[in-house]
């Protein structure tokens, strides 16, 4: 029994059907961690991109160092760091929050590169027209450059969304009850790993297929909003 739901070990099928609701609870945690981690990656990555594009080296250089560090160290180390070291400085976050934060921070290093490439691909003439019209730097970035970079950014971000989803099982090491962790517990208690792990694989397949389809829909939808994908 887990989460108050009992399993039925009378047959393989009965077992699968009985543990499905338990795994779905774990899947819901996986989805939440993915969405929160992705959101953090999108927001923080944009901040890194803006800082790295700053004309002042005092600003751009530290941002470049931090993102390089985030990219070049394993997620597990960052996760342990946030989980075991932060409390020593009096910052204690719930395991789930710590996990989502670690995912978001590591992926912010990748998304910042996506933003940078997308932003740099916007024609120089767009900056010049904005300057000639006396638009402020902030307005130029948010309303002229970024909207044109987004169609170039979306497909790559979609890939990272799927990657984050597939990295969520790592959070089990800091006790987050995401889907794989739930399956392992069921296996430990029933000595049947095959069924729960197969189900997790199938559910993961469904999640990534749905996410990929969503990204593709967005790819098709954006150009129709007057943002040509060129």
């Amino acid at each position, binding site marked *: 029994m887990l989460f108050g739901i009992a399993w039925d070990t009378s047959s393989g099928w009965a077992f699968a059907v009985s543990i499905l609701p338990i795994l779905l609870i774990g899947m819901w945690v996986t989805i939440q961690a993915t969405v929160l981690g992705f959101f953090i990656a999108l927001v923080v990555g944009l901040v890194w991109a803006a800082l790295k594009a700053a004309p002042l080296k005092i600003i751009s250089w530290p941002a470049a160092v931090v993102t390089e560090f985030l990219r070049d160290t394993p997620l597990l180390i960052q996760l342990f760091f946030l989980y075991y070291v932060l409390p020593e400085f009096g910052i204690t976050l719930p395991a789930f929050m710590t996990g989502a934060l670690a995912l978001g921070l590591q992926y912010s290093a990748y998304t910042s590169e996506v933003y940078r490439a997308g932003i740099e691909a916007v024609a120089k003439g767009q900056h010049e*027209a904005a300057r000639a*019209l*006396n*638009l*402020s730097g902030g307005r130029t970035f948010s309303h*002229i450059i970024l*909207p*044109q970079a987004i169609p170039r950014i979306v497909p790559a971000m979609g890939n990272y969304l799927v990657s984050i989803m597939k990295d969520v099982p790592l959070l089990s090491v800091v006790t987050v009850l995401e889907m794989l962790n739930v399956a392992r517990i069921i296996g430990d208690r029933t000595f049947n790993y095959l069924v729960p792990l197969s189900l997790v694989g199938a559910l993961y397949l469904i999640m990534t297929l749905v996410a990929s389809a969503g990204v593709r829909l967005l790819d098709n939808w954006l150009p129709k909003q*007057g*943002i040509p994908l060129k």
Partner: protein
Amino acid sequence: MSDEPIIKFDKVVKRFGDLTVLNELDFEVKKGEKVSIIGPSGSGKSTVLRILMTLEDINGGVVTVGGEPLWHEKGPDGSLAPASETHLRKMRTQLGMVFQQFNLFPHMTVLRNITEAPVQVLGLSKQEAKQRGEELLELVGLADQAQKYPHQLSGGQQQRVGIARALAMRPNILLFDEPTSALDPELVGEVLNVIGKLAEEHDLTMLLVTHEMRFAREVSDRVCFFDQGRIREEGAPEDLFTDPNEERTREFLQAVLDN
């Protein structure tokens, strides 16, 4: 047209790395004057306009617009220091630019292209900006295209939007950098018509870099022939086009007219 210069280049130097593009250029434009700049590719024509639009800085000399230094600020003791962004923002309000590649904002409707800066920079209400935008579209003959996106328009129509967008900021000086060079030949006329109309009806000061010699002759008060970052020859269009003094001008005109 009054006699005071609204634009003045005083021994202006512009370099790109080792390449000196403008070498102590002296150049003046009077208020309301329509000046065409002609000359071979690479002679520094665009650079002159881009310096005025504050898209390129200068390495020496002084550029004055409306009596005030453009790239410098006068300190309390009267000495000139490099201009701050605030100063450049203030100076920029006098100028507008029409680009060779139009540079319209592709994700905004035609009307939004025109109203964005008046709302954000001049602080017009959306309603006022829209009304003015529609008047300007009327002026350039595109009243029925307001809700289209740039990629739905022909090149000639896009450039006319570019002109309306620049006019919406109510500049005193309008800079045209080869406004018809990116257009198919059959679309050049509609853009030149609009520019010609502006030249006739407005007291705008206009600087036009162009290869359209016949048009330059019609609309300009003065034509400047640029060569290697200097004004090799300048004068009234009827003189310069029919009887240039310099051999270099003659060669250039010959080459262009043969095309």
